[in-house]
């Protein structure tokens, strides 16, 4: 067994107390793969529930407004994370800018949003295997072994090192994205022989404008998870450059993929069917009548779900690890594997949790838990941004990227979050309240009990001057 010299300061430039730390090996393409990889599965399943909530046009409006919401998220995250470059992403941002309790909450949002999404992805892999087996004439395939295998294989990959993990993500994400482009080209919208029938299939808004608001709930699905790029901050070679580049390239990729997906799907299927379909892009490929496209989009669905689960394991474990390292959670989780340089105990710990949800909970509940945690996180971001600029005005510290037009993106983000809260309220009001109550109870537990194990000044690790106003 090869042993690298873990104590050598020349290995990655680390000195001080750190004997074993995460390792900086990633480039901007990996950041793109991490962000887009987590999200792209949203185009293969889930976004179309927005069609069911408000009709085809409502889904397009939701797609673009959610795109605007996420562009604001990406800009804000790019600025803060290119400056606060540590694992934990938004958790570490909150710790430096807002305060420990908010950071604890943000860390939980991240872990739950990603672990639930991972469970949902594994469920989809199982469903896909079942469907393919049924199409091949084998009814009643047990999806459980495939659910378990996808989680354990990806956990093993993550355990073995971040570079291989994200190279894997890069390849399968690229394939899944190209599959969407080929599907669009395959329908040949410019020719007379195109199977697209937008003029005949499109209808008026079935629920009026209330439906457009309701559609925002699943409009988030087009992009949910792009903010995960921040989790790689401690493992990219030059965070100040790679993180803004990868994140902003990612959101552009997704706006293109989302719009193409919408365009092709609503031109191929009546909205009532599309609004409840389990695998909309696969169905779209079926409607074109081409076997090659059918196989391609089947493979695309599988790859997109695996890439997403892979990125989720990566991100959830980074957030959990960072909290352990700061003693927000038991310190045991703050360990780094001395050979593979991964937060291996956090990866292991989250495996059984993902398995329990993937094997035991209904899909829509799991998905809603994930969306709500994400939404709470987006609501935190604009306040975080405004406080960041106020405590450290431009010029007082070195920023890797400065986003334009502050505070417009922050205000737009607050407004869009309010709309989305209302949309969630229309469908899942009880879950929303239950979630918030959960976070309140967890916060009180942290504030009153857990926080006493945390060293006060040591949490503030950035070499910044004292914040203004303190």
């Amino acid at each position: 067994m090869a042993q690298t010299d873990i104590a050598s300061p020349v290995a990655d430039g680390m000195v001080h107390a750190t004997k074993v730390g995460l390792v900086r090996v990633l480039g901007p393409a990996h950041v793109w793969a991490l962000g887009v990889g987590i999200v792209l599965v949203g185009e293969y399943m889930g976004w179309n529930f927005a069609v069911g909530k408000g009709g085809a046009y409502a889904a397009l409006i939701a797609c673009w407004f959610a795109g605007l919401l996420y562009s604001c998220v990406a800009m804000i995250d790019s600025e803060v994370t290119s400056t606060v470059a540590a694992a934990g992403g938004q958790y570490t941002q909150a710790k430096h800018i807002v305060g420990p309790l908010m950071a604890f909450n943000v860390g939980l949002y991240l872990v739950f949003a990603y672990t639930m999404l991972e469970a949902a992805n594994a469920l989809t892999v199982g469903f896909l295997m079942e469907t393919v087996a049924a199409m091949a004439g084998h009814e009643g395939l047990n999806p459980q072994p495939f659910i378990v295998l996808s989680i354990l294989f990806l956990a093993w990959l993550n355990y073995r090192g971040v570079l291989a993990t994200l190279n894997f993500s890069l390849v399968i994400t690229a394939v899944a994205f190209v599959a969407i482009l080929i599907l669009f080209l395959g329908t040949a919208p410019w020719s007379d022989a195109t199977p697209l029938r937008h003029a005949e299939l499109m209808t008026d808004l079935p629920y009026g404008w209330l439906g457009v608001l309701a559609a925002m709930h699943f409009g988030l699905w087009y992009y949910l998870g792009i903010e995960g790029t921040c989790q790689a901050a401690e493992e990219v070679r030059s965070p100040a450059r790679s993180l803004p580049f990868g994140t902003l390239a990612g959101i552009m990729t997704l706006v293109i993929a989302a719009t193409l997906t919408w365009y092709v799907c609503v031109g191929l299927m009546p909205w009532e069917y599309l609004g409840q379909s389990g695998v909309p892009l696969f169905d779209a490929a079926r409607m074109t009548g081409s076997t090659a496209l059918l196989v391609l989009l089947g493979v695309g669905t599988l790859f997109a779900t695996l890439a997403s689960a892979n990125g989720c394991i990566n991100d959830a474990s980074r957030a959990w690890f960072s909290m352990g390292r700061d003693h927000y959670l038991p310190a045991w989780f703050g360990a780094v594997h001395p050979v593979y340089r991964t937060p291996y105990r956090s990866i292991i710990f989250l495996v059984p949790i993902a398995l329990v949800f993937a094997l035991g909970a209904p899909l829509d509940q799991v998905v809603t838990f994930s969306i709500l945690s994400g939404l709470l996180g987006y609501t935190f971001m604009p306040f975080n941004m405004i406080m960041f600029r106020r405590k450290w005005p431009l010029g007082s510290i070195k920023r890797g990227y400065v986003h334009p037009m502050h505070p417009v993106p922050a205000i737009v983000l607050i407004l869009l979050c309010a709309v989305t809260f209302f949309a969630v309220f229309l469908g899942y009001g009880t879950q929303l309240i239950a979630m918030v109550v959960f976070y309140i109870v967890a916060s009180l537990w942290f504030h009153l009990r857990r926080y006493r194990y945390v060293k006060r000044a040591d949490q503030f690790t950035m070499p910044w001057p004292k914040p203004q106003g303190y």
Partner: protein
Amino acid sequence: MDVWTFLEVAAWALSALFAVLIIADWIRIDSTYDEDVLTSSREGEIEALTEEHR
């Protein structure tokens, strides 16, 4: 036994294999290295070296 039944068994077997690989390595690492070394990672130490703020 048709191909799908075989795939089910294979998936269970592979799952078990990955679980064993992870757990075996975990036990080996935890017993080989000192806890202080494993949990020695500190946030922001790279930044303190490579970036000059102020």
